């Protein structure tokens, strides 16, 4: 009796059916393109990102160049008579080109959103995975930290800290990053607890893998899809908070063109030139919407257990 060839013949016979199925990458692509929200969000986000990166090339004017003669020129679609073809979206109260300021403002929003998400993501993921994997006392400490963090009102604390330290890009990123990690921690903790019980973790321990290797190679790749979704929400959250802080005059300082700051500067003229407050407001809305849609889309295409 020679069981091996016979067994392998059966094992092989089972393969063609699987081999005919598309590879995971191609299936993922198809599922991505089948999700309109995700496609639109990716396009909008991509466009804003390209604009932000290539701002000096894309922007028609210097965003800081003032021209007091042409203050508050409305865009053509608001008032064709007063509009100036050189300023597609008009000028602000100091005569600076509005379109250029919006384009440069995208830089600030994306920068703050991205780096805040990075800071809070690293803090929250490390704490969450540690709590979920080690459990026991570590879990108790992390849960206490999360509870403490949740009892702090984000806007109040951010306002207080920025008021003391002064508003700048770095301070805003750091303060928001240190305040927005709670959701990362909570989600990563529960995802890790699920993964920890799997036998491949036990197998890795039996092999003799070190704890960092298990966390990095076995746990992290299996909680990553949840992480991407949270990251997108937190990025949107950070962008909104930066706009709020800048609106209150405690975020990015003028003359830096931040969207929140532009809303703030335009609010005095809200009744006379409403387009001035609408344009940066719409930009914030669009960016946050796109990021949220992207997060939803990623969740939808990764969540169904069709993967396994």
């Amino acid at each position, binding site marked *: 009796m020679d069981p*091996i*060839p016979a*067994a392998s013949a*059966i094992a092989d016979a089972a*393969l063609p059916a699987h081999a005919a199925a598309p590879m995971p990458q191609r299936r993922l692509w198809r599922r991505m393109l089948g999700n309109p929200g995700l496609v639109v969000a990716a396009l909008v986000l991509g466009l804003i990102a390209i604009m932000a990166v290539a701002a000096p090339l894309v922007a028609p004017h210097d965003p800081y160049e003032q021209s007091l003669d042409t203050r508050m020129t409305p865009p053509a679609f608001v008032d064709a008579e007063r509009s100036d073809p050189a300023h597609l979206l008009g000028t602000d109260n100091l005569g600076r080109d509005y379109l250029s300021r919006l384009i440069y403002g995208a830089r600030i929003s994306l920068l703050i959103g991205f780096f805040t998400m990075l800071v809070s993501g690293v803090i929250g993921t490390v704490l969450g995975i540690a709590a979920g994997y080690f459990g026991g006392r570590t879990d108790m400490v992390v849960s206490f930290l999360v509870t403490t963090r949740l009892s702090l009102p984000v806007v109040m604390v951010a306002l207080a800290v920025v008021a003391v330290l002064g508003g700048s890009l770095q301070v805003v990123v750091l303060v928001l990053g240190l305040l927005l990690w709670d959701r990362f921690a909570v989600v990563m903790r529960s995802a890790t607890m699920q993964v920890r019980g799997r036998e491949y973790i*036990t197998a890795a321990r039996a*092999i003799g893998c070190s704890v960092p290797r298990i966390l990095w190679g076995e746990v992290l790749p299996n909680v990553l899809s949840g992480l991407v979704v949270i990251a997108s929400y937190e990025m949107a959250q950070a962008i909104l908070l930066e706009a709020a802080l800048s609106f209150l005059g405690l975020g990015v300082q003028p003359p830096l063109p931040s969207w929140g700051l532009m809303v703030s500067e335009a609010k005095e003229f809200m009744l006379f030139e409403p387009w001035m407050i609408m344009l940066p407001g719409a930009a914030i809305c669009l960016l946050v919407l796109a990021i949220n849609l992207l997060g939803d889309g990623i969740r939808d295409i990764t969540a169904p257990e069709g993967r396994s």
Partner: protein
Amino acid sequence: MNAASPILELRGVHKRYGVGGGLMARRRTLTAVAGVSLRVERGEVLGLVGESGCGKSTLARMILGLEAPSEGEVLLDGRPIASLGRLERGRLVQPVFQDPYSSLNPRRDVASIIGLPLIVHGVGTVAERRDAVAEMLGLVGLAPRHAEAFPSQLSGGQRQRVAIARALVLRPTLVVCDEPTSALDVSVQAQILNLLLDLKERLGLSYLFISHNLAVVHMLAGRVAAMYLGRVVEEGEAGRVLGAPQHPYTAALLASALTPDPSLGLPAMRLGTVFPNPLALPSGCAFHPRCPAVFERCAREAPALLPCPGGGRAACHLTGQDQHQAA
């Protein structure tokens, strides 16, 4: 390596867990394993049988070094397991688990799963590791093209082959198989069992084979140990234990095995409906509340694991008294 010592020796191993406990509730002790002493010789297959919750898997986890015994010693290759580093331990003993859907990391492809132990142990160069993985694939009866597949693209039997390849790539001496076939289709079970038998011969492995399927144990194991509530109640050569059981519990296990003949109906286990509670162990012999042959001494005195007539050992007051019930 010490050729004289058994590859695995358990000396009075206990495992207790504290459960519950709080402001008002007293913390209670759950005894999962209560004084198990067993040996697995080189090249031997020891079958470990018993119903769910009897401590088989806890025992396996201690042998793999994933949990420390509360009392007693686990010796691998004659050395206490606590004295071995995690890499050294990994080279001596490797597991094969029950559920091949949970035992493979879904984010790694097959080559990476089988190659991981080699990387962790720093074996060979990249090319040598690739060759070793290809050799393992051949040994477990998978085609070279399976190397790039992800677990989700494989069937249950193929996944179990991958799990076996991962366990054997380091060429361990002892493999702890924790119900390696009970999650598989019956037709695939036989393939996997044949594969395990064949690999044992080719690579000179020893198995601790945990199962509740007595037919599977009979096919594979040279010796069998039956566990009940954390204790070994009977132990001996497989033919003897499964042919002429000395302990009423082993006899009941055998009687409860399903047969394909429907005219026989469902087997009667004759053990009653009283389920054992590991939090409140019965007095005397742990099995006495369910034993069909119980008498007054059983509730009073715990029987020792003593040599019995047909060879091996059994823990029952009736053994050697010639009046035992082979139910």
